[in-house]
């Protein structure tokens, strides 16, 4: 039996378990929102939880984990590379806050 066929034959128990995990993680984000911590720390914690949630949804709900390894690598490497290249503007965003060094 191939990986895809194994995935199809799995019952709804696994779906329900992933759903419960996603609900719990979503709830955790709401708990973090009411923690008495500064915004950057809160942002990082929420982002980590969101990435874990997205990973679970992609691997199990979207069945990426049951696809061929080559395709999984293609999606992961391509997506992560472009997401990382989108981060180039943050230094400029911080410069807007601090006004340094170019505005002085």
């Amino acid at each position, binding site marked *: 039996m191939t990986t895809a066929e194994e995935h199809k034959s799995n019952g709804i128990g696994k*779906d329900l378990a992933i*759903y419960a995990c996603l609900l719990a993680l979503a709830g955790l984000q709401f708990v973090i929102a009411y923690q008495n911590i500064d915004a950057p720390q809160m942002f990082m914690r929420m982002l980590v*939880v969101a990435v874990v949630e997205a990973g679970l*949804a992609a691997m199990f709900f*979207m069945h990426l984990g049951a696809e061929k390894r080559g395709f999984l690598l293609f999606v992961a490497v391509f*997506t992560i590379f472009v997401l990382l290249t*989108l981060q180039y503007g943050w230094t400029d965003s911080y410069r807007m806050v601090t006004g340094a060094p170019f505005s002085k």
Partner: protein
Amino acid sequence: MSQTDLTMEGHSTGLTVGPAFSFPTKKLAMWLFIIADTMTFAACLIAYGFLRNGTANWPRPFHSITNVALMTFILLTSSLTMLFGLRSAWAGDKAGAFRWIMITASLGIVFALLHIREWIGLIGEGMTLFKNPWGTGLFGASFFSITGLHLTHVTCGVIALIAVGVRYKGGRYNADDIEVLGLYWHFVDLVWMFVVPLVYLLNLAH
């Protein structure tokens, strides 16, 4: 047999036997769309983060998490019902698959209505694309852009769910089409997992 005949025959065989790249073509197309759409949403959210980080008087207008928590619950549940629909389709239970797909579409409609109700509430408090009573006007532009883009995806998803569900019931589509549609619906859910913390929870009024 000429070289042209050989080439044409080979070409024809390549198009009709087996999916391209040993991967179902429709599914590959949907994954490519999802990757492209990921870039769109990522660009919007990063631009939003850029603005929020660089603006001193960023508004924190949200006093309650009830609405957004309910919306999150509904969207996550709709992903589960979509999976149930797909499993029914894989099992050959056409009526069951159609029922679950329609339940998913209904949950999508409820999500959209809650979203619109929230928008109307914020507009009633004086928030527009360019100004709001709490701080920089950039908040309205970024909030409506990101949530509006997501709401557009949900609306398109609901239409697609109904259209594909009806055609599946009529025998024109099969379980593979349900799976491809499910990929889109789960992606909409996945995006919401980032929209909620960045746009809502980080802007809670404490």
